[in-house]
């Protein structure tokens, strides 16, 4: 990701180093389902390294889930246009046919979702749901599949796996269901796990358990995780590097500590300031005024301009791109150099 200052990131054709497992180049997603097209995702580029937890953070509707689903072709075929490249090894997943794509999904790249209740099939026993995945992607025999299912349940920390495998999803609590979803996702030892707000539907104590589990699984299995969340706290706790999305674009990307210590985009600064704090006497949160722009007809220039306290005249007209602010830190802000440091 090396590049000269003040120039957009150059698009590389392949996963450039052995370290990189997934590289997304100039990803765009356009929904043509309404009367006018909606550009939900535009010019999103990032890469994920082996064994890394990469975070994508942003508010509702900023395109984070659409980005994640586009990676493995889970967006509906009708009325959705996906552009750009997703390099996984030497394969561009967006060019892959339906059949090879199916072999990637669930086996090499798998996904866990936000609400674990609705993502489990209510009429199938847990055993069937785990073993079916193994049947689809491996040549394991019946007995080995059974053994593997038990092993997976233990891996995600479910007690008495033999009995629980015979149960239905409604017999599990929220946190346990998320563990089951993880067990299914991990069945074929994927190299990349996409996690779409995996803890949003859970209460805080369970959230913490699941996050710790995810981290432990990453350490034990050496897979990479792309973690999508609207919660900067979760991202900060979990990730090595993070991309902040706003109105369908990445506005800032950096190693997570660097981003929190020294954000170089006004939106990131606003996000951090709007977090509740325990170390001041202020009784009020500090929200970002206004609302994100419509993606049907996004404004030219910087999309954050209308809400930005540091806005200049040229902000509304420049052809935005990610600019290198610090080492490994890129910001879609003209004024990234003159933004105030966070007063910590």
């Amino acid at each position, binding site marked *: 990701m090396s590049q000269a200052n003040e120039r957009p990131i150059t698009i590389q054709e392949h996963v450039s180093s052995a370290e990189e497992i997934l590289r997304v180049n100039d990803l765009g997603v356009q929904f043509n389902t309404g009367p006018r097209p909606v550009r939900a995702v535009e010019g999103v580029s990032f890469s994920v390294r082996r064994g890394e937890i990469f975070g994508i953070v942003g508010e509702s509707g900023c395109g984070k889930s659409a980005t994640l689903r586009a990676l493995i072709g889970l967006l509906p075929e009708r009325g959705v246009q996906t552009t750009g490249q997703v390099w996984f090894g030497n394969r561009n997943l967006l060019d892959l046919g339906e059949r090879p794509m199916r072999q990637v999904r669930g086996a090499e790249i798998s996904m866990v979702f936000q609400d674990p209740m609705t993502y489990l099939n209510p009429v*199938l026993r847990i055993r069937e749901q785990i073993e079916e995945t193994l049947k689809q992607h491996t040549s394991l025999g019946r007995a080995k599949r059974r053994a593997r299912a038990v092993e997976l349940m233990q891996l995600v920390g479910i007690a008495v796996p033999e009995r629980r495998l015979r149960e239905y999803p409604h017999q599990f609590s929220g946190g346990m269901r998320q563990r089951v979803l993880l067990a*299914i996702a991990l069945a074929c030892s994927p190299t990349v796990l996409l996690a779409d707000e995996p803890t949003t539907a859970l209460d805080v104590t369970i959230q913490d358990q699941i996050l710790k589990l995810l981290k432990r699984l990453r350490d034990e299995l050496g897979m990479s995780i792309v973690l999508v969340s609207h919660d900067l706290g979760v991202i900060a706790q979990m990730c090595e590097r993070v991309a902040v999305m706003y109105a369908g674009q990445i506005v800032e990307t950096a190693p997570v500590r660097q981003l929190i210590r020294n954000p170089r985009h006004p939106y990131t600064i606003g996000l951090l300031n709007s977090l509740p704090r325990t170390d001041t006497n202020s009784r009020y949160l500090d929200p970002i005024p206004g609302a994100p722009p419509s993606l049907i007809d996004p404004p030219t220039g910087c999309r954050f301009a209308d809400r930005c306290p540091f806005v200049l005249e040229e902000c509304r007209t420049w052809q935005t791109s990610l600019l290198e602010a610090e080492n490994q830190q890129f910001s879609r802000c003209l004024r990234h150099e003159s933004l105030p440091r966070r007063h910590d």
Partner: protein
Amino acid sequence: MVRWRGRVPFAIGVTLVALTILGALLAPWLTSYDPNSQDILHTLAPPGSNGHLLGTDQFGRDVLSRVLYAGRIDLMIAFGATAVCFVFGSMVGLVSGYFGGRVDAVLMRIVDVVFAFPFIVLVLTIIAILGPGLRNMFFAIWLVSWVPYARIVRGEVLVAKRREYVLAAKALGFRSPRIMLGHLLPNVITPAIVFSMLDAVNNVGLGAALGFLGLGVQDPTAEWGKMISDAQNFMSTSWWLPTIPGIAIAIFGLGLSLVGDGLADRFRPE
């Protein structure tokens, strides 16, 4: 684990249906009379007289053996006609709802056309072309009775396919047929199963109606509906003629409904 409260009606239903099936299967051993042999000396004999446990009809034919043998025809109509419609209609509904778009539009227009056709007119046409009889009656029912299944299942699929477990199944790399049959079908089939039980009872009534018009089962074969319509001239003097086959239909119909409800509960684990 075992919740008897929900299972008692189901058990009763199974018993009633089993009773009907056993009666039909074991007919030759349960009665010594041929269903079509006439005892001219004892016509319209009341139940219990002259060794006829349930009496005789206007030709002196034994009502018990006719009811039992009629069960064979009616079970055939109930299950044979319904099963084919159930499978075919459900598949059409599944495909239509899952793929949507043009496939859905074409299939559902066909369904609309069949629905719009007056059933009896269609059956009369088919039988006018093919000739009367049980087999052609089956054709007529098959041709028409699959459409409600297609509509029921399609409606369920439209709701269910937006559920996240379908997306999850896609994310696990499953193929469309597998998602449709393995993940969607168990979630959408319950209303169709319940409907099929009522439909089976309906089909028995349909067989009766066609028999009454002389288009279904032909004389002298016994069939419950036909027995009732044959009895209408003797109803005021010989109560047992319409009552006995009527009870048979009631037992079978009640049994099927209870089984249908019971199955609906079993397929819904939560």
